């Protein structure tokens, strides 16, 4: 599984832009607010990657908001009530979201098409209402004043600095989010191009035929849904830590829908589609901030034009494959 020189160069440029280019540009232009915007893009792109993965087995997932919310709450509760380090609560949040996904996925993954889409949409509402009703989530009051991530050191060697002692946490959160995003997409890329990915693709195209060649489709569906929700949980937990608060409304139906739109906009056929889709949708909204009350009108008009003329996603622009029809 070798990479071509072109691919390696692309990855190199990408890393350079993220870790050196962006900070330099921000320092030069003084647009410090872009750090948070880009951090958001990175985290939302992680959750969107999960949605994209469920698309990859042919399921429209409008439930990622639920798992992001679960992740945010698990991390917040572990940090605030159990006193865990954020860095341990982060994977725990992902794993818990994955566990919930397995339990819920067992019955609902049999559904297809719009039925699956709708049941996941309802799932998002269930998550919000549950958070409102449960005592451990503090109900309507939410969990606020969550401490910033603490430092981590092994044998006295500091691995991660203490966020609360930092002058400016923006850069730290930006770098953390970007590292998480890169790991997520590297894993996603690897997964899609490994045998599991090929099996997913076979399921996406025809579940019956896939099972006739011996693919345990229900097992793979669960695995994929769990991985997808793991991403959602991680993204949500990280957000909770930046906002230092979690409310039942932190992730709602609108978020679930946005995650899905990110995937559509970027292109369902491309691993890096959701990343680009998130960047355009989220950053685009921010850039249109200047238009005041016309912001939404312009934003939605551009969105409609994009899908009208590029129905297979933004990435179909550069990749010739999209030209067939």
């Amino acid at each position: 599984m070798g990479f071509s020189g072109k691919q390696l160069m692309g990855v190199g440029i990408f890393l350079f832009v993220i870790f050196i280019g962006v900070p330099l540009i921000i320092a030069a232009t003084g647009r410090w607010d872009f750090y948070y915007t880009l951090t958001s893009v990175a985290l939302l792109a992680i959750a969107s990657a999960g949605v994209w993965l469920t698309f990859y087995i042919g399921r429209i997932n409008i439930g990622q908001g639920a798992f992001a919310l679960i992740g945010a709450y698990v991390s917040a509760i572990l940090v605030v009530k159990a006193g865990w380090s954020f860095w341990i609560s982060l994977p725990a949040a992902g794993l818990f979201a994955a566990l919930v996904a397995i339990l819920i996925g067992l019955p609902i993954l049999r559904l297809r098409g719009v039925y699956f889409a709708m049941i996941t949409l309802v799932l998002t509402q269930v998550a919000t209402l549950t958070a409102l009703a449960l005592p451990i989530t503090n109900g309507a009051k939410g969990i606020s004043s969550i401490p910033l991530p603490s430092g981590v050191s092994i044998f006295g060697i500091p691995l991660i600095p203490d966020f609360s002692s930092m002058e400016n946490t923006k850069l730290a959160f930006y770098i953390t989010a970007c590292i998480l995003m890169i790991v997520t997409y590297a894993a996603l890329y690897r997964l899609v191009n490994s045998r599991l990915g090929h099996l997913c693709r076979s399921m996406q195209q025809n579940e019956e035929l896939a099972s006739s060649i011996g693919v345990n489709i229900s097992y793979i569906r669960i695995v994929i849904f769990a991985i997808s929700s793991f991403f959602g949980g991680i993204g949500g937990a990280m957000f909770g830590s930046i906002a230092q608060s979690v409310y039942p409304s932190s992730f709602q139906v609108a978020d679930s829908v946005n995650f899905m739109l990110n995937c559509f906009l970027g292109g369902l056929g491309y691993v890096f589609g959701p990343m680009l889709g998130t960047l355009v949708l989220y950053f685009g909204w921010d850039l249109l901030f200047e238009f005041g009350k016309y912001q939404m009108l312009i934003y939605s008009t551009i969105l409609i034009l994009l899908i009208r003329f590029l129905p297979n996603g933004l990435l179909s622009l550069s990749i010739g494959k999209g030209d067939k029809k």
Partner: protein
Amino acid sequence: MKRRSLMKSALTAVAFTSLMASTALAENTVLKIGFVGVTSGPAASWGISNQRSMEARAAWINETGGYKIGDVTYDIEIVSFDDQKDPKRAIAGMEKMAQEGIHYVVGPNVDDGAAAVRPVAESNGIMYFPYAFPKSLYEAPASNAVLGMVANYQSGPAIYKYLMAEKGVKTVAFVAANESDPLSQRTGGIEAATALGMEVVSDNVTYQVDTTDFTPVLTPVMRAQPDLLVLSGVSPANAPQLIRSARELGFQGVISTETAQDAGVLAEGAGDLANGFISVGGASTPELSSPMMVEFVERYTKMFGEYNDESNTKVYALEYILETLKADPSAITDVDAFKTTMDTFEAPNPYMNGDAKLRYVGMSSFGQRRQVSVPLVVNVYQNGAFETLFVAEVD
């Protein structure tokens, strides 16, 4: 291919213009005040009444030659950010305000947004004026948030006390939307009512935010036959429907809420059924409005076509910011100076007749002065307009 390159360039153009616009240099005499809140979607009414009252006031100031703070006269520019009622976006909005060098921001409109922007506001030296009630936002160690209105745990007791004394109200029922803000307000209301010795006969009926028909929601509440029905944290959109359903179900008692409402909306949505409905508002009833308030309403109406009574309360935050800055010009860039000034600040309230004062309060609720002293004006709706029931003060 042609179409594509066209689209690409169009997109780039859009991106560029907005970049350019936002990096354009501000003139020296401009003082930017921020607004981060919800101006689109279901709750748009909250933020829009906010934003418009700020814009109307700013336009008025600029038209009449600007605002003098210290030796400099400023034009006021309102920078608004629509957070879509999403706490994640609210953070982005606050970052944007920091980017614009703004130190004074009005909003956000809801609990989760107000909590989420706190880290950004504190690390960037921004004072913000949310319309959210959680006490943790205003109690130490938090120190950058200033409650922009009267909290329901302050107005509730006043209203209940009045109703007990004047109308002989003994039993009360609460309904709330199943959402953070209204549920928290319901909790506060129940505590206040119980403390006053009222009997709470129904306190667990909730409705979905998107409910359009409240008859089934209210039927069980009506069975408890309360003297008073409190609509906790009710949104202006839902209030008329709730009132109408309650009256149609034969409810004879008093209906009240602790949030600001719009008379026009009530008139259209519930008509005469809304007569006697009690809510909290600012100073725009004829008895209280100063000439300045009257002119403000006129200018607002001219600018946006229609006035919104919710703005009665929301006009104050900007006035407080400007007056405090006037009292201590160094606070324009230094929020610590602002905080110090807050403790002693006092100025006449220009919107109200009589000798009402603008000052910061909140000692008894938060242990520090982190609330604007808006007159606690309790209104009653009567045939298309609000009448003042009584006026109280918050300490």
